[in-house]
């Protein structure tokens, strides 16, 4: 009995040893590599990401004025059952030198769905008073549950793989 258990354990160990490296590679190909470190921040609390101090001011629906366009990257027109949403943040750069930001924005709910998001009408300069906006298009059922996520953008602008992420809680 004991010997059989040992053999089964050995086989299970071998299977796991073979499977694990393959699983990791598979995850990479499918761009499903989760963040290696997740930080969450409550609304109104500041958090630093890419040398900018971000403070979430609020989540809401986006209102486009006549002639205004949604963020580049969001297809238009939006269909029934879909809503343009906005995360409004205060962004304070911590360095004086102008630089390009390489942030991969997305919106997620806690059920595991995610949607693309993009900066909108935002210029981040030191001493600037205007808020920063991140816009996304989500189905109506996600309007009250989505949260903004920031990750470092991959060099080829494709989805972020691993790395840290910052989640702005509701």
């Amino acid at each position, binding site marked *: 009995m004991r010997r059989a258990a040992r053999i089964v354990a050995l086989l299970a160990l071998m299977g796991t040893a073979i499977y694990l490296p393959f699983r990791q590679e598979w995850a990479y190909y499918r761009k499903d590599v989760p963040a290696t470190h997740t930080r969450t921040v409550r609304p109104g609390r500041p958090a630093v990401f890419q040398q900018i101090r971000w403070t979430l001011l609020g989540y809401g629906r986006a209102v486009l004025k006549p002639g205004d366009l949604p963020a580049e990257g969001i297809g238009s027109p939006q269909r029934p059952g879909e809503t343009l949403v906005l995360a409004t943040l205060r962004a304070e750069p911590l360095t004086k030198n102008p630089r390009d930001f390489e942030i991969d924005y997305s919106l997620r709910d806690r059920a595991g769905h995610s949607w693309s998001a993009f900066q909108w009408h935002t210029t981040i300069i030191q001493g600037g008073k205007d808020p920063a906006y991140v816009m996304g298009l989500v*189905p109506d059922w*996600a309007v009250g549950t989505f949260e903004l996520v920031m990750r470092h953008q991959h060099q080829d602008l494709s989805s972020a793989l691993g790395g840290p992420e910052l989640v702005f809680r509701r």
Partner: protein
Amino acid sequence: MRRALSALLAVGLACAAVALQNTHWSYTRAYGPFVKNGRVGQAITEPLFTIRVEPVEAARTILVPATSYSKPQEIPANGVFIVVIATVEARRSPIYAGQARLHTRYGDYSPTDKFGGGGGLTTPVVTPLSYVRFQPGMPRRGAYVFDVPREAVTGARLYVSDHDAEEAQFGFYRNDPRRFADEVHVDLGLDTREAARLTRTAAAGYSVPEPS
């Protein structure tokens, strides 16, 4: 007796090890694409997306509507345009279903490039589904359009993969568009009689629906 059994076991294990050297998964089984089969009208669900394909249509010419810069024009097919209208929805995160192919007995055909948009340098005059980024909870209905010889229509099947080649130009192995992808193979119901009917009644001036 016990020693003989141990020796026998050792020899057996050695033989098994040698045999296992020659036993391995095929490339496709190990690296994909991982295929799920379906048919027209059926919702086919993959881990990352769901697709439902409508009955196939055919066209001799496709009407491209006027834009701010050009007049309306009719684009003729070299053979016949096979228009596959499908509704695609991402299940979890944004994806492209950009790797669509029409699998025929003559080989695989990519969506036609007659509408422009090649290499991502221009915007196509008609937006095929290959250009659409699908997101959860927001299904899109649109068309994949193929230009194929009339003789290739019989038995043609639609292959759609969730692995996009457009965004994966750099990095370790990322140029291989089909590796580790999930792929749907849809039987379009094009037997000899249906293929003959389709090519015989192919429309002129067909308007390809924009993703909606």
